[in-house]
């Protein structure tokens, strides 16, 4: 049976996941350089071992209020297209093996900004995990339209 590995994390109490191979690393960082006039979903820039990484605030992408970037915030750094890009999340979860059998398309009742970011739902024990469309999730111009 086909199964896939997902890295999971929480935003606003909801469990999200991206496929493990899209993730470069996970780390906590606390100094972000804001980018004035950038789309609101851009949380800031930070220095990852000499590389400048843009952090995308997943809360804003989901239509929630911005992360208060004071103190450490968890970053899920995605390999991205050509250069890494980070997603700011509330909390990091486990890496889980999921059978394709537990997958379902997003429920029809799911609407709003979250609907566009989600490719489907995985039924875990006791809770649901929404699988993110990585490209949509880091597209900072999407939310501003």
């Amino acid at each position, binding site marked *: 049976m086909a199964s896939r590995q997902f890295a999971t994390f929480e935003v606003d109490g909801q469990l999200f996941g991206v496929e493990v191979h899209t993730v470069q690393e996970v780390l906590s960082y606390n100094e972000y350089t804001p980018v*004035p006039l950038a789309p609101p979903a851009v949380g800031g*820039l930070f*220095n990852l071992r*000499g590389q*400048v990484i*843009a952090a995308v605030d997943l809360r804003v992408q989901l239509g929630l209020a911005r992360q208060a970037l004071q103190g450490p915030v968890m970053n899920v750094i995605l390999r991205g297209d050509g250069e890494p*890009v980070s997603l700011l999340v509330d909390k990091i979860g486990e890496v889980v093996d999921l059978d394709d059998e537990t997958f379902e398309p997003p429920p029809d009742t799911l609407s709003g900004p979250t609907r566009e970011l989600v490719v489907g739902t995985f039924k875990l024990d006791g809770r649901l995990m929404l699988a993110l469309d990585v490209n949509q999730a880091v597209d900072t111009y999407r939310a501003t339209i």
Partner: protein
Amino acid sequence: MEDLGEIVGEFLMESHENLDQIDRDLVSLEQEPGSRDLISRIFRAIHTIKGTSGFLAFSRLEKLAHAGESLLSRLRDGVQPVTPETITVLLLCIDGVRSILSSIEENGSEAEVDIESMIVKIQAQMNAPTDAAPAAAPAAEAPAAEAETPVTVEQEASAARPSPEPVADQRQPLGQMLVDAGAAQPSDVASALQQQIEGDERKLGTILLDEGKAQPAAVSEALQSQAPKRSIADSAIRVDVDLLDTLMNMVGELVLARNQLVRGVMEIGDSGLVRSAQRLGMITSELQEGIMKTRMQPIEHIWSKLPRVIRDLSNSLGKQVALVMEGKETELDRSLLEAVKDPLTHLVRNAVDHGIEDPERRIASGKGPEGTLTLRAYHEGGHVAVEVADDGAGLNVERIAQKAVENGLLRPEQVPNMDKRDIMAMVFQPGFSTAAKVTNVSGRGVGMDVVKTNIENIGGAVSVDSTPGEGTVWRLTIPLTLAIIQALTVDCGEQRYVVPQVAVLELVFIDGNTTKVEYASGAPVYRLRGKLLPLVRLDRALGLEVGGDQGVYIMVLQADGRRFGLVVDRVLNTEEVVVKALNTRFKDIGLYAGATILGDGKVGLILDVSSLARRSHLAVDSERENVAEKRGQGGGGTERLLVTAVGERRVAIPLDTVTRLEEFPRDRIEHAGSREVVQYRGQILPLVRLSHLLGAYGEELEGDTVSVVVYSEGGKSVALVVDRIVDIAENSTTARRDAEEDGLVGTAVIQQRVTELLDVRRAILAADPNFYSDAMDDMLVEA
């Protein structure tokens, strides 16, 4: 390529370099057909390729090279003359060699390339003029081991990459030198040589010294004069460009680490550590400079392919083009050179295709039949300028304008007001081409916009200037290097930003007393040595909370030929920063040229000075400034102005429009409809309060009388109410710039204060909308 083995890899690389040299030499040979030097050089290069390909068992390559070599040997021996046809065939042969080489590189075999037809052509060429003896056997004296300079790192400053002569030609034997200098006897040298031949392993100089046949000073002098003559091939090594890039990146990181360390050490203040840190700093700087130098290459590197391009193109178009290169030793960072190559080739092709006319047309317009294409490179203020200039027909501004209108890039009514150069710049718009017919070279409407995009991608700029009948100059302005720039770090709000130092002219501290920011109807300005400097607040430009005007710094910046002041909270220091490209998602903001890691490890944004200027609408202002200046100059010299106070502002009215100055008791002001009027010399005089017209802030002055400026024309008068008459002043019409606001024509510095110039006509119309039309009627009646 990995499975080909090192030898083949090296052969390919070396041969490609040889071929480029042959290309150049062949084109030169066409210019000076008698040059035996060139022929022998080409011959040797091709012989090397032939020799090595035989050794590596690339038989087809060997066969083709052999055919070329045979033709060349006939040229060398003078059996047949050098003609353009021979050159064409030889170039064809070189192209054939090239395609075999790339076939070897791609799939390891040489099988697919058709060489037979080429060989037939070469043989036809050989048999054509005379039926002299068949191709001479390959000359034995051609030295096979000739390493054509493969240089990436050269010891010699002359970067022109001449092909080195064999070592023996350049280097005189030591014995010979000593004899020539009279420091040793020929017989002693001969006997020493004899000893060497017989197995003495000592060096010649040592033998002579040991036997007391020469003075040590003379020997060492001879050795020294011998040493620098070693060939370039001995003093240069081949370095992988990737390795250089890695080194460059690592030095970049080292610079950052050094900056962090120096900062930390300064905080601790230990003098021993400070010294070490300073030493580290110096070494780092030198290392960085050294690495940067290894990446610099003369622009000739990319120009060298152009003579061939121009030759082929002008031949196929039936044009005559002479190429002139100036400043080919100008050096550029390797990565920039790569990026400039294609745009430059495109500009050159375009100049030959569209710029330079046919010989008939040139003669008809009184020029020589041969056009000149000039490539020019030179340093200019932290940039390198590369120009492609032709002496052709020049750009047709009307046609460009017409085309731009047809393509919807311009509106017809815009055209008459546009600067000639702005119209010419339309050719850089996507989808623009004025070529009457599409040739296979250019005219498809792709290209110029790509040139522009490519150059802008590396932080450069493109411009064009042209004089009808005299030619066109395309100019690329390219930054020296991408990787590390000198920059000033500044604070604005909570954040730190980086401003490239090339753009900074000077810094001014605003203490609020002796230096201060002034406002010309809301627009902040600073008086820099009597001239008004428009100011841009960085916090406002970035959409941040706007701070105060005191205790701030003005950075006087120059971008795109415009000067402006950037107001920041604090200027920290100069630093070398490593420019990191910003993610494309920030490109649209347009305010940032990149990002960097600051000394404290945080990311700092590098401001893009020219787009900052553009965004702040400075561009518009400065254009109007020019207009205003021209207008002023047209009027000639100075004008006399009546300076009045309106609220807290000073407003000047041209004195020649003023009829009288009056004071009216406040209670004489009456109302007629919505207007204020006074009775004056048996007339009803409409009043307009400048404070209302200009929206001046401040309370109405309390007092029994009001000051008015009366203006009369054609028997009608209006009165402009001001708070106070200040003075009459002469204004030299310089230091003037136009204001955004209605009712004003501009601002100027008068008696060291910013003064606004009233648009009198507008003010009068505000008082009496019919003022001018009635006056006209009256005049007609009188006439």
